[in-house]
């Protein structure tokens, strides 16, 4: 996948969406007192938040790297 085609703003939107979804699930897992709430948190919420952070960091790398045109 070519990140330059996707664009930083789209990456930020994906990152925000993942983080928001993960955080909402984390709230559900904290309010829900059930053995499965830990599974919901550890395997779904934390994964979504982690992916959101990762996508954000990828967008930072993409934003920091000079484009081919500016180098020429």
């Amino acid at each position, binding site marked *: 996948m070519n990140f330059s085609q996707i664009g*930083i*703003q*789209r990456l*930020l*939107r994906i*990152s*925000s*969406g993942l*983080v*928001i979804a*993960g*955080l*909402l699930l*984390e*709230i559900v*897992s*904290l309010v829900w*007192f*059930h*053995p*499965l*709430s*830990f*599974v919901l*948190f*550890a395997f779904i*919420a*934390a994964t979504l*938040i*982690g992916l*959101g*952070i990762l996508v*954000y*960091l990828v967008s930072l790398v993409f934003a920091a790297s000079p484009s081919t045109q500016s180098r020429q």
Partner: protein
Amino acid sequence: MIGILICQIVLSIVLASVFLIRPSLTSATGWKIVAFIGLCVLPALCIVGGMNTHVQRSEQTRFCVSCHVMIPYGQSLYVDDPKHIPAQHFQNHRVSADMACYSCHADYTIYGPLNDKLQGLKRIYMQYVSTPPDPAAIRIPGGFKNAQCLHCHVGARNFEENPVHAAMMDSLKSNQLSCLSSGCHDTAHDIENLSHEKFWKPVQ
């Protein structure tokens, strides 16, 4: 504690929502910093806080007995008979009533809490994916270790000065002689016979 964590999560959601609606804001330096906090720092802190809260919650007696197979074990804490070791410890607050299961069943080693969580996940798998075990057939892998009793009792005067304990202290510490299965303190949860027992009703 959960309240603070939820406030932090809500703040993080609000910040992330800003960048979901208007990602173009990050072209300004100030907003770049806000984006870093909202999309990286706060969510990472929320994961750490959430994990900590869930681990602390899983140490509560209420949490342990929220599993169907553990319900009779929870009931056995109210047996009105001092020979029942878990009931005697729970009712006389020899262990914290809120952490009764964890106090005696925690693996007090460096990776103990991690092992406990893995065991818990295994039980969740058995409950929802594999075949749920019969509560009476549940056994601790490797048996109940003396270290779990000695964690509190070693150093206690009434334990150390007891001539029976003193005579076999080395065997107890090396786990050669089991506190529970060598015939001395052999009535643990005994859930097969719960229906014949009288139960203690705590004063509300």
